């Protein structure tokens, strides 16, 4: 009995102190003087542009990593070939590497004097897109791989003997089994893309109103002693992430028949 309450207390306390309190504090700071001032700081051209940049980055990175992620998961689980293990390990690289390292690597490769050095990649939107794709790549793969392993290959083999082509088998048999895992991966990818700071920071050049995403804008405002602006933008980021989570909870099926 005591152990049960102690466990609850510890877990809730941990969440309260480390997660809820800091975020609650940001909300409180933002709306300390009412909604008006907070709204005014978010409605500035630079802030709106930063929001637009973040949404563009997310809108490119998420579909790209979703399609690639599902294909990559199929390649890892369904095909036996030399190097499959390496592919599996390399997918985790973005989780292991610090985003700053990712940013620097992109600079070295695409920056002035880099191997693939060209115009308009580094210190511009394409570089930021590449950085965002890089850091948010593993999530769909990591969600889909275990589900593919679990469902096994027998359903797909039966579909083949019943005359289904590879594409028909994927659409009618494999996809229905992995779609919720994929969706969950999409949510994690979106959250990561929205919140990416380090890698984007290095390759963006941080030009306000041009190559500043919302996370960079938050730091920019904070360093300019515009606390209200920083807090308000931070709250906007948090709301975007929350909306993604809520959307997933709404889309998730009632798992009655599984």
């Amino acid at each position, binding site marked *: 009995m005591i152990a049960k309450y102690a466990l609850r207390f510890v877990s809730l306390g941990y969440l309260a102190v480390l997660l809820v309190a800091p975020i609650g504090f940001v909300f409180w700071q933002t709306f300390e003087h009412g909604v008006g001032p907070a709204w005014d700081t978010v409605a500035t051209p630079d802030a709106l542009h930063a929001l637009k940049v973040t949404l563009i980055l997310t809108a490119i990175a998420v579909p790209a990593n979703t399609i690639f992620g599902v294909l990559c998961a199929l390649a890892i689980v369904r095909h036996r070939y030399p190097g499959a293990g390496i592919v599996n390990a390399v997918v985790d690289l973005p989780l292991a590497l610090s985003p700053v390292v990712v940013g620097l690597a992109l600079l070295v490769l695409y920056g002035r004097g880099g191997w693939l050095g060209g115009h308009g990649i580094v210190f511009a939107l394409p570089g930021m897109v590449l950085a965002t794709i890089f850091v948010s790549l593993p999530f769909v793969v990591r969600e889909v791989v275990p589900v593919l392993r679990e469902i096994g290959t027998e359903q797909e083999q039966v579909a*083949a003997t*019943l*005359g289904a082509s590879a594409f028909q088998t994927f659409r009618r048999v494999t996809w*229905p089994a992995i779609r919720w895992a994929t969706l969950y991966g999409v949510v994690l990818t979106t959250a990561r893309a929205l919140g990416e700071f380090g890698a984007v920071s290095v390759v963006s050049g941080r030009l306000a109103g041009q190559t500043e995403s919302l996370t960079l804008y938050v730091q920019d405002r904070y360093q300019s002693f515009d606390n209200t602006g920083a807090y308000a933008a931070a709250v906007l980021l948090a709301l975007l992430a929350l909306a993604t989570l809520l959307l997933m909870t709404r889309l998730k099926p009632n798992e009655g028949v599984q």
Partner: protein
Amino acid sequence: MIAARGIVKRFGDFTALDGVSVDVPTGSLTALLGPSGSGKSTLLRVIAGLEQPDEGKVSLDGEDATRLPPQSRGVGFVFQHYAAFKHMTVWDNVAFGLTIRRRPSREIKQRVTELLELVQLVGLAKRYPAQLSGGQRQRMGLARALAVDPKVLLLDEPFGALDARVRKELRVWLRRLHDETHTTTVIVTHDQEEAMDVADRVVVMNAGRIEQAAPPRELYDHPANEFVMSFVGPVNRLGDTFIRPHDVELLLEPNGSTQEAMVQRLVHLGFEVRVELVRDDGETLSAQLTREQVEALELQGGQIVYVRPTRQTVFSD
């Protein structure tokens, strides 16, 4: 007719099939019988096109099918663990092959109704596989395989995941189904009783090779070698001699050709009684008697009896 010729299949260092040739006559029900790892499932998968042989040829009705993908072989396949499409209803599972072939919906409706009647699942058409028992799921798997009118029905340990009673029911039911449809059928099993019960012909496999292919009776009466002898039924082995337990006669008095043995244990199996014996030279053997025989002899544990084989087999090799 299915004809496999010189099939070799290796998985890394392991040779699953080591030059297997087998014929399955059209309209027959053939069992591939063997212990696990004998290659029987691999052979079935090679026939289905789910596995490519490293050497050898497979022909279906005289046409070379070795390189044909499973989609174009016209086979129905049933897995031990059902391989049900979990997110589809029973109806949609059975209709799958017809839907893929874009058959008119009237035809699909008629065919699926027929099949659900055949497998006795009419009332459960709207259920999901998770809401069915194992036996029902496997009948659904059979209906799904039969829906596309396969030339050949291939069953991989279809009743292996079911409990003993359901297994026996389905076995009888499968045999009846086959007598109605006459679809050429190959069933893989490690259960000799199941193979003998259901099949016209039994192919006994061991270590990637075929030991013997024969009708059940011939297999039992004239096993080709020790492996088949001991795999298709219980057997006593005394030196080089093999004796079936029902070929052991027990007498209360010695008569010259008998040997003395002591009754260790009586195991009552309903109509039959298994008598476990130990001879004076320490060899153990068992005899299978009817209850009447045991009662007539008034057998009891610890009793001394005299044993005489009425029939025995010695393999020359």
